């Protein structure tokens, strides 16, 4: 058979058009025919024993479920801790004052001690102004 030159490397379309398509189809069919040949299944008289042994040695489903629940709970606690940590870092970076400092500012504005402070009263008086 005359060898045809392929022009396009991606789509499989060539200047020779249909002839090239026929060729590629034939070659693909030949490759598939090689691949289709059944795989030899090795003799393994102990296969079923291995499967049954794994079934017998598997942890009970309830144990696996407990493990999964524990892992999920631990992951949730870790995620919350990480979230709080990240929040604190972001606050610090953005200069957001800590709540206790905000309370101290209120006390200073009112000219009273920290023990005498009533933040609700302060907020109400601010709104009235």
């Amino acid at each position, binding site marked *: 058979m005359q060898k045809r030159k*392929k022009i396009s*490397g*991606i*789509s*499989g379309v060539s200047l020779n058009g249909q002839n090239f398509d026929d*060729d*590629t*189809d034939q*070659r*693909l069919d*030949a*490759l*598939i025919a*090689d*691949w*289709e*040949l*059944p*795989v030899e*299944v090795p003799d*393994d008289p102990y*296969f*079923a024993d*291995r*499967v*049954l042994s*794994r*079934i017998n040695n*598997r942890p009970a489903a309830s144990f696996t479920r407990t493990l999964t629940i524990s892992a999920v709970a631990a992951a949730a606690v870790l995620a919350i801790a990480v979230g709080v940590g990240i929040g604190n870092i972001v606050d610090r970076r953005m200069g957001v004052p800590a709540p206790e400092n905000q309370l101290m500012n209120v006390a200073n504005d009112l000219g009273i001690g920290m023990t005498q402070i009533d933040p609700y009263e302060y907020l109400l008086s601010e709104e009235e102004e």
Partner: protein
Amino acid sequence: MNDQHWLELIRKGDKTAFRELIEHYRPLVYRTSAKFVANVDDRDDLTQEVFIEVWRSINKFRGDSSISTWIYRITVNKALNLVQSAKRKNWYSGLLRTSDYREPETRADETANNLMRNEGASLINMALDTLPGNQRVAFILSKAEGLSQKEVAAVMELTEKAVESLIHRARTNLRKKLSHYYSM
């Protein structure tokens, strides 16, 4: 022994019946696994996993389909999971190799014909490795296992039309992916 009888006995915990079922369906599972994983140990492990799942889920099996269809379904799901986890592992470890298919096993006494055959099969495996899972499953079940479109549809829980389309798309994609091979 027929499927229904096996099912009844295995549901009662009869391990002798389960052993018989394993012996009967092992070739089917092994052959199908072999089209997804090249490594012999992985195939064996996958085949074991399939039967462990059969034992575990036998009470959930309603019997709407035949046992073989159900076992095919478990096999392809397990195989796709294994392939996905192997890909993730390779990605994590930064290896260039994306599957074992790039290293076809060869024996010293193989004839030139066998080597060429293996090369052809490896090329198809490598190309199949890059196809979407559903196209790959439809193609393997139809071409390698020789299942009808109706049977593939039952395994994949799709319509026959959808299976036909998947097989057609798989073939078109294989053709594109192997275009470099045709130009040699």
